[in-house]
């Protein structure tokens, strides 16, 4: 079923090469337009140089500015807007070149009072079917800050702690596409739920970080879960362990489990394991870093009373920061489909990411997708992430 590129006829090869050239051109055009911003810096530089030179030539002594105590305080929440623009070439289908604005994410976050903080996240995304933009509420949470016994409670709509990657927003993940197991078992951007999360730091004699999360509520409808027709609730537990191996390297190991209702009003249960190793030299931490992350899950979907289908998903990736603003990475994904026996999807991905500043990320990703239940394909995706305003920092 899978046909490698080198087995195509020469006419097909030419077509593929031409398509590749077209998409490369499109991507280069996008990159050029975005990098033009950097060139404007160069113009500003030269203007600055002229101003500086003229100032130095005149040798006019400039009095030091009078010290000022501080800016006016404000109770406004932190507001940020993050744009996600993409260009795509896929070897699949007739219309296989796309260039589109994928999503706008607006986040509003603030402390509510001495006891809690709040976070609202709206997304304006493009509908893949009709191309229209629609607004949605992705997250709305109230988080306690002062509960005793190292406890924390979150209420509202949020991305639960099932697996490590699920809680990330797409712009915070190293790769453009979310792991296949997350997309296949839940949805393109993962699992969302409405309910409550309670977590506690577990004291232990070795004094390492250990956090237990327990979440309860109702899941958004996705490939595995559907609580729309039942009173069953979704239960999730996640145990996160974190160890500092040295000043420069850390390892995190987590286990997760969930159980909830599926589309047949029967039970779906899942278990997950995540391991993340990070290396970052403390002294030059803005220049080089390395991350290796691997996760796996097993899902059991009840299809009728007494009958269940097991399916699996996993991914592993590394990412290396080769200099201050450039990262490379590779990922391998394996995933089945929930409730579908012998389904099999394997994806290899290569990533190149350039970050002019922490407010702008340009990335290029190549993916080779092989599936035993649908045609295989290759795709090249370009993504530009750009943010304005004050965006809350992401967890480690």
């Amino acid at each position: 079923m899978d046909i490698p590129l080198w087995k195509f006829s020469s006419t097909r090869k030419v077509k593929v090469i031409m398509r590749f050239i077209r998409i490369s051109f499109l991507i280069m055009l996008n990159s050029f337009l975005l990098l033009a911003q950097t060139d404007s810096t160069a113009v500003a530089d030269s203007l600055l140089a002229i101003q500086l030179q003229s100032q130095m030539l005149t040798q006019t002594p400039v009095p030091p500015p009078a010290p000022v105590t501080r800016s006016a305080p404000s109770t406004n929440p932190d507001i940020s807007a993050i744009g996600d623009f993409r260009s795509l070439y896929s070897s699949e289908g007739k219309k296989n070149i796309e260039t589109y604005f994928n999503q706008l994410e607006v986040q509003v976050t603030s402390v509510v009072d001495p006891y809690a903080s709040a976070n609202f996240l709206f997304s304006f995304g493009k509908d893949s079917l009709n191309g229209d933009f629609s607004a949605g509420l992705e997250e709305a949470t109230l988080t306690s800050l002062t509960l005793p016994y190292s406890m924390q409670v979150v209420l509202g709509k949020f991305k639960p702690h099932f697996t490590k990657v699920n809680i990330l927003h797409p712009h915070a993940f190293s790769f453009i596409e979310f792991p296949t197991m997350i997309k296949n078992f839940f949805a393109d951007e993962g699992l969302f739920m409405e309910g409550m999360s309670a977590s506690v730091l577990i004291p232990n004699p070795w004094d390492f970080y250990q956090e237990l999360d327990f979440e309860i509520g109702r899941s958004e409808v996705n490939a595995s879960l559907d609580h729309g027709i039942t009173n069953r609730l979704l239960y999730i537990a996640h145990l996160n362990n974190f160890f500092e191996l040295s000043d420069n390297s850390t390892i995190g190991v987590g286990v997760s489990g969930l159980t909830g209702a599926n589309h047949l009003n029967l039970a779906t249960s899942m278990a997950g394991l995540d391991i993340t190793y990070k290396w970052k030299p403390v002294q030059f931490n803005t220049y080089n870093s390395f991350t290796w992350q691997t996760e796996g899950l097993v899902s059991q979907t009840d299809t009728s009373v007494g009958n269940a289908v097991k399916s699996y998903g996993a991914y592993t990736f590394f990412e290396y920061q080769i200099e201050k603003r450039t990262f490379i990475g590779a990922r391998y994904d394996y995933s089945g489909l929930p409730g579908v026996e012998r389904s099999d999807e394997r994806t290899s991905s290569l990533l190149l990411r350039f970050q002019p500043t922490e407010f702008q990320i340009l990335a290029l990703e190549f993916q080779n997708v092989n599936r035993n239940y649908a045609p295989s394909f290759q795709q090249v995706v370009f993504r530009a992430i750009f943010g304005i305003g004050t965006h809350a920092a992401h967890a480690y």
Partner: protein
Amino acid sequence: MKKSIIVIFALLVFSIQSYSQIKIVTTIPDLKSIAEQIGGERVDAFSIATGYQNPHFVDPKPSYILKLAKADMFITVGLDLEIGWVPPLLNSARNAKIQKGGEGYVDASINIPLLQVPTSVNRGEGDIHIYGNPHYWLDPLNGKIIAQNIYNALARLDPEHQSEFQARLKKFNETIDVKIKEWESKLAKYKNTKVIVYHNEWPYFEQRFGLKIVDFLEPKPGIPPTPSQLAKIIGIMKRENLKIIINSPYFTSEATDLVARNSGGKVVTLATSVGAYPSIKNYFDLFDYNVYQLLSVFQ
């Protein structure tokens, strides 16, 4: 049996002593050093950042959450220096005492006469700090204000030992007064020496010791040096006959070395924090080290 009783008793005494100490977490080691000067053996202080680390970019590791969860006091530089990593740590710390507004939350920048407070802010200008330049601990006189802020918090948390803290504060201020005269006199004849620096983090040091910062290797704060900027700096150094380029421990030496090679200048790496080098064990050592380094390139 006798030995076991002694060991148990020692552990008990030790644990009682540890329990009675005020647990302090600071963002940078300079604040830890000053807190230790004022608190003495009454405090047990931990700094999240190391002295050779860029304080703008620290990873909010979960292990720091554990430290913050147990802390009685949290001391921050403030002015948004740590905006990229302190908020997620405090949000996850589950500790009411050290949240902003809590009795153990200390913003060390209170009452600091700030420099470079922008009248308007635009990210096109790079990483501008909206409240002013946050590297104020690099003026030793500001160390006295920091010490006062820390003293206020210690006296609030442990009024029983207020007089002890007050005595230490007095001693700290006296030492600063003595040392500052020594440092100023050593650098007096180099007053108004023009220098180039990598990042805009020396205005307080510049003001105190009379250096003249002409330009930066970063074209804009936080933006890595560009070829055009380096060429501009080389031109300025040649034209103005400047000889000194100041680097910081957490910036690589590629750009500074390149400029030095092409301009005939010298690079000096100054310490930005306590612990940047093994010999810098406290806040006074920081200035001893930097003054010595500057003298070695000025002479």
